[in-house]
């Protein structure tokens, strides 16, 4: 067994020794803050039109600062492609709003059309994002099919409703698998061997942890609430203000409980799934992926990022984005299985062969955000 494996490895790449590299992220919160705030000023001044340029600058910043084996990733989309996509989405949104407000029958029709367009939009968005991503001069690609996307993103979620959402972790598994296994690099698809059981485990861990956190916090809140009630019983405090304060503080307390439970659940679920997904993926014969994201670190990151964004009225957003990018990059390792100097951009070669223009009619950004 061992022997045959080494044999085949030496046969295909006689001189190449596989080597592993960590992904590095070199962006800084301060630098991205400057870029972000200038983007916002220009977006506000142009009533939103500059947002397309802003998106390109933001993506270029994050891609360019992500390095693997000494080479940077590139984001290739042009602002005009983004702008076209946004105008299209805006027109559809206006028509849809108009329909639902004034001609409900057409509104329902619009929802149906959108529903049946969803698989196509998902494919289109992935295709665009992948083709606009480049590493070492080779672009990524995405080859999805409408039928499969229809099953994974429409049929299965609907079916999960009838199983009281018991099917949902399996549906998420299928979604991740669909989105990742159709990505290609140098004409090689990624093979994804994820297990449904891991998704159920992740969901269960997230639920249990969120439940425990919520119970502990509610117990604490209950103790605090007794004190508050005693205060209101006190005749001198028995006025309107106290009633209002009690009402508002109960609301705030519930929000805090919800927030902490939510952060814990998100952190646990996302960590487990990301690690499992990357560890089960391989760009066949080219690269193997590994992710060792730490559950506690990532949960704390989600938690502190949200707090920072909320209490800084949004100003901590760039810092939070950079922190996340750094932690996720550092938790990712890539093992090169063949010489990365020998790959080809199949997309570009096809284009020159057929003399096609790079931007076809639908090469616009339909991805949301």
């Amino acid at each position: 067994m061992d022997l045959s494996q080494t044999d085949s490895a030496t046969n295909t790449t006689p001189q190449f020794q596989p080597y592993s590299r960590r992904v590095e992220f070199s962006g800084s919160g301060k630098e991205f803050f400057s870029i972000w705030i200038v983007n916002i000023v220009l977006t506000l001044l142009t009533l939103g039109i500059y947002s397309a340029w802003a998106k390109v600058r933001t993506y270029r910043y994050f891609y360019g600062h992500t390095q693997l084996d000494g080479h940077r990733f590139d984001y290739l989309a042009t602002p005009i492609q983004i702008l076209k996509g946004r105008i299209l989405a805006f027109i559809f949104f206006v028509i849809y709003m108009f329909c639902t407000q004034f001609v409900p029958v057409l509104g329902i029709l619009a929802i149906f059309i959108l529903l049946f367009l969803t698989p196509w939009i998902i494919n289109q968005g992935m295709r665009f994002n992948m083709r606009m991503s480049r590493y070492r001069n080779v672009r990524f690609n995405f080859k999805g099919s409408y039928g499969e996307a229809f099953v994974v993103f429409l049929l299965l979620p609907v079916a999960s409703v009838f199983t009281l959402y018991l099917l949902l972790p399996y549906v998420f598994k299928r979604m991740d698998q669909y989105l990742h296994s159709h990505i290609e690099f140098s004409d090689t698809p990624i093979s994804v061997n994820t297990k449904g059981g891991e998704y159920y485990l992740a969901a269960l861990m997230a639920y249990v942890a969120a439940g425990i956190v919520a119970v502990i916090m509610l117990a604490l809140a209950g103790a605090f609430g007794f004190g508050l009630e005693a205060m209101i019983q006190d005749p001198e405090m028995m006025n309107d203000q106290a009633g209002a304060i009690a009402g508002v503080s109960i609301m705030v307390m519930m929000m805090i409980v919800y927030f902490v439970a939510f952060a814990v659940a998100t952190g646990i679920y996302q960590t487990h799934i990301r690690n499992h997904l990357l560890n089960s993926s391989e760009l066949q014969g080219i690269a193997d992926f590994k992710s060792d994201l730490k559950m506690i670190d990532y949960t704390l990151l989600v938690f502190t990022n949200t707090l920072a964004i909320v209490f800084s009225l949004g100003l901590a957003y760039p810092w939070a984005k950079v922190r996340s990018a750094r932690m996720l990059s550092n938790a990712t390792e890539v093992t090169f299985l063949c010489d990365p100097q020998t790959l080809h951009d199949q997309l570009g070669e096809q284009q020159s062969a057929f003399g096609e223009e790079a931007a076809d009619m639908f090469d616009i950004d339909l991805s949301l955000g």
Partner: protein
Amino acid sequence: MQVTGFYYLNNQSHSTEVTLWLTQDSSCEQVRIYSGDELLVQFDQYRQGQQLSGLPVELVFIDGSRFVPHSASHRWPSESAWDRLLERIEKHKTAVLGCVIASAVLAWLLFFKFIPASAAVVARSLPDSVVHAASEQTLAALEYVYLEPTNLDEAQQTHIRTLWQSHIAKMDQAPEHLVLHFYSAPEIGANAFALPDGQVVLTDELALILKDNDTALLAVLLHEIGHVQYQHGLTLAAQSAGSSVTLALMFGDLEGFAEIIMGTGSALIQQQFSRDMERQADTFALEQLSQLGYHRSAFAEAMQALAQAHGMDEKEQGTLWDYLSSHPAISERIENAHKTD
């Protein structure tokens, strides 16, 4: 100019460590790329990539090959004035601080001035048929969820209709197409509301608590006519749509809880506008009352009756709840009615 970096061939992952020489005469530029001492290739044309703080700027050549400098701070003589300006602003501490302040001011102008003003314009310029269709839909939805056929007897209905018609005829600038409907609404209780096309709904519960006070009932109806007059409903809808789109463009992808908080903030702003609209409708009702020759205190009586019907102490409000409420405090509204009377 001599720069080290990676040289990539077109459509290939193959990269070479190179040194690039850029020479500029008065008439032409020339790029020569060396691997060690060996001249790999030379070009007399190049295009530079987009410039961004903290990232190297690539050169792209006619055959599709690229040069990426190792140094992130190196800049080419061909940089555009706009790129240079942006990068200077981004690197300048005072300028960045200026941008923070400018974005706060601009966001304030946008959310509190520009969006409300354009929402009002949009609401006003919608064709009547569209406004009517929207109102019919809203009423149909309300009928389905909350409203039941009226239980008021014929005499009472006729009495209120006469009150309504005789006074609308006397108003100088009444909105067109005003229609009054009666509904029983056990879940809503004593209330009245207006639809954008001029349909006003009065609940049986409100008609009953004000059955001995025609002027107070008139005050409530005038308040609703005020909403129609100023197109408040449509303006508020257009405004909240505009605000959500703007927030989405500013933050792009907020996740989870941060998104909820920002959404809540935006909703609180909407409540503020809603309270301003209520005040405007109150003022309209008070002015019309005076013009029709009634005492403004009739409005205060209506408010007191409403507060009682909903089991509120008039002092109970005027606290923290004000910021969460879509209506001004009853006490404030009553005070206003007594002012300058």
